[in-house]
């Protein structure tokens, strides 16, 4: 068994260190080593998006990233989406639009949506659906999720404060 190594990464804005074996995924490091269980395991094959985190500004499936690859990167997880001032506009809109039922896919959707809006602040509904196609939801039929993202984009563009 390969020895564990110390990995230093920037996690939700804070420099963080953790130990991991090479075979561990970033998802395992987040959930099992760092106790950040907000990112979820749904499939381990990159087909459901429940484990979505943002790495250096891009959404990625943390189940398909080795934990060691976090070295030197900037990683954002659901735990860092809200700020001291309150929920991110996306989180607020998901609540208002009832965009979650069981909620297991919600962290993944929020991180994918954030990555989308950070790059494309004014997406069309088609662009939103395309960007979120890597996140599966089995409860909602996606309708209220898409409405929430549309509404969040509108609110952010109107100058409302984002976290």
């Amino acid at each position, binding site marked *: 068994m390969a020895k564990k190594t110390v990995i230093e990464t920037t996690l939700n804005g804070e420099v963080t260190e953790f130990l991991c*074996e090479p*075979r*561990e995924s970033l998802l395992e490091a987040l*959930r*099992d080593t760092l*106790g*950040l*269980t*907000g*990112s*979820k*395991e*749904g*499939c*381990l*094959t990159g*087909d*459901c998006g*429940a484990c979505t985190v943002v790495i250096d500004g891009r959404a990625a499936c943390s189940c398909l990233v080795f934990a060691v690859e976090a070295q030197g990167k900037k990683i954002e*997880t*659901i*735990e860092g*989406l*809200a700020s001291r001032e309150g*929920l991110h506009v996306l*989180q607020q809109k*998901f*609540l*208002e*639009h*009832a965009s*979650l*039922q*069981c*909620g*297991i*896919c*919600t*962290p993944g959707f*929020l991180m994918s949506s954030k990555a989308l809006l950070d790059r494309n602040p004014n997406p069309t509904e088609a662009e939103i*659906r*395309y960007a*979120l*196609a*890597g*996140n*599966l*939801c*089995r*409860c*909602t*039929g*996606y*309708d*209220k*999720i*898409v409405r929430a993202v549309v509404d969040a984009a509108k609110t952010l563009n109107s100058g409302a404060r984002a976290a």
Partner: protein
Amino acid sequence: MAASNGKNFKVIGTRPIRHDGVDKVTGRAKYGADYAFPDMLFGKMLRSPYAHARIKSINTDKAKALPGVMAVMTAADLPDLPDRVESAGEAPINVAHLTQNLMARDKVLYNGHALAAVCATSPHIAEEAVALIEVDYEILPPVMTVEEAMKPGATILLPNLRNKEEGDKQTNVASHLQFKRGDVAEGFKSADYVVEREFKTAMVHQGYIEPHNAVAMYNSDGKGTIWCSTQGTFAVRGLSAAVAGIPEQDIKVVPAEIGGGFGGKLTIYLEPIALVFSKMTGKPVKMVMSRADVLRATGPTSGSTIRCKMGCTKDGKLVAAQVWMAYEAGAYPGSPVGAGAMTIIAPYVIPNMIIDAYDVVVNRPKTAAYRAPGATNAAMASETIIDELAEMCGIDPADFRLQNAVAEGAAQTAGPPYKKIGFVETLEALKNTPHYKSKLEGPYRGRGVASGFWFNIGLQSSAVVNLHGDGTASLVIGSIDIGGTRAAQAMVAAEVLGIGALDVRPQVADTDTIGYTDVTGGSRTAVTTGVAVFQAAEDAVRQLKERAAKLWEKKPEEIAYTDGVLSTAADPSKKLTLKEIAKQFARTGGPITGRANVNVRGVGPSFATTCVDVEVDPDTGKVKILRATCVQDVGKALHPSYVEGQIQGGTAQGIGWALNEEYVYDDKGILRNFGLLDYRMPTCLDLPEIETVLVEVPAPGHPIGSRGVGEVPIVPPVAAVANAIARATGIRMEVAPMSPPRLLKALLKKRNGADSQAAAAGR
């Protein structure tokens, strides 16, 4: 129970932010796999690579010897349970089959059937150890379809399985049910149009995003705790006790948040294994299924073969129906064919009918409930034939259904006549939607309509309302929240107490904290737990009146409680709000707790009608869903947003079932698509907006008028899509899913002039 139909509600029908919402959008909510304890161990199962085999021997020595392995288990470590039936939620369960399904004894009966397990210090080590277990299998021929299983001379799966009709003969047919009314032969003679088709629907999975999980701790005092994502903590307790051989009263089940269930988490897979491992090792043990395990070895719903024949007069009056239906039970008996039989023509008044329904075992995973289990398969058959008859009569499909619709007083397939129901109202409402009124134009475009029926069950629920000194309340229930029900239940309590929805804090409690509550399933939460919560809040109100009576020196009967204010007609100057009297709880007798325990019977069913517009690519057979609307009678929506959500979710699942979802086994019975790449569920790019219409025909006997809403929306969509394809292309598909290769084959055959019904149906 006083019905409150037509009353103006203050809280019911509004859309507050759900109480557990912030935890869920911040990732703080704890689902089963999120639980972790110091010195926790990890369990993994060994699963059969074969579809059907005798287990000659299992050698776990190498696995035990791997450093980091703490325990190994086979069926020898679990009690050998007799063929005995226990109640677990909606349906009785044979505990011998249950325990054998969790850990095979003499035979493995499907690819993925568990037969051993390992417990180790890391999940990776557990996985490595599982690979070191040596099993000597005697491979047997796999039986993969109902046709193969029912053939004379078929390989037998369960040597002890018998059915009433075949006496002592070994069989793969677990049961045969029959429903009859009138005289079908005479009925068909009087028909002007008769359509008869044979349908096949594929096995599909509920597809919840969260795999099954369990964390268990068995303490040295003989008391165990299980944390898991489940639809029913009391079911987990009872079934785990039986399988593990531990007394039920020594097990506490704590509900984690659940990441989807849809019926698939009403039973157990990992819980007793984790508990026994904890007993063996003295440490907490966590087990989480992989997605491949979920698809191979949990409980998808039955594939089926349904032969359906229906006849009507040229005026569109249905006169006769004849159905033969065989459903895959999987490795052990218990498909939902009975429910399929009871729902297939339930929405219609048909004087002559005969339905023969067969529950058949095959070498596939043991089926579990999937949202209105059995009904979607059935509707694919009946609702498409009805559409065909409507087309032959030249009658609009909604009108055809209206002409034949059941209403209050009509006979059910089994059971007493319908009380007040809202089927007709859903059809009329559909006709009034912008969707239905809009013109659908363009080549290869079509509009399909289908209706669905599903029961709501009652059963047992318990609720406790604690009033706090600041005039707010907390609500304790046992109904697991899979889609927003804790918020809706808090709203029920808030309505009765006359306070705001957010002034009631709901909690879904463990099996020690709340009274026995049946599973979250069967569309029962609003109709049964809702009643318990209503009554518990009324019980609290009764006590409030007693306190006011004490303070005002009046009799409790003289006290009124309206919109959160106590008053007495005898003295209009005396008023106390809940907030005010709460400050006086201590001096008037102590805290106030309202409670209620119910076992509700005779709950009415739900109806839905779905309309789908499709566009077919004639050169590839790909179907695009242009527009979808589902109209459902919800009685009285507690929280409309979450009711809409149930309808949208069920519709989306139905569309996936219609277009691309199916289990694909090879000729050796090995599952080929055990991942979400090739078990294709709809993404948000595959679906349009899903429009919903909530029809509110109050349910008789319910204090608020609510009906169950969770299941019926999944019943119509497969047939609605099939009907839309038929209107778009002239092709009546007889196989679900109507995937592009099947539809293209039918399109090409039609284009090339083939006239056989079978060829043109995509088979």
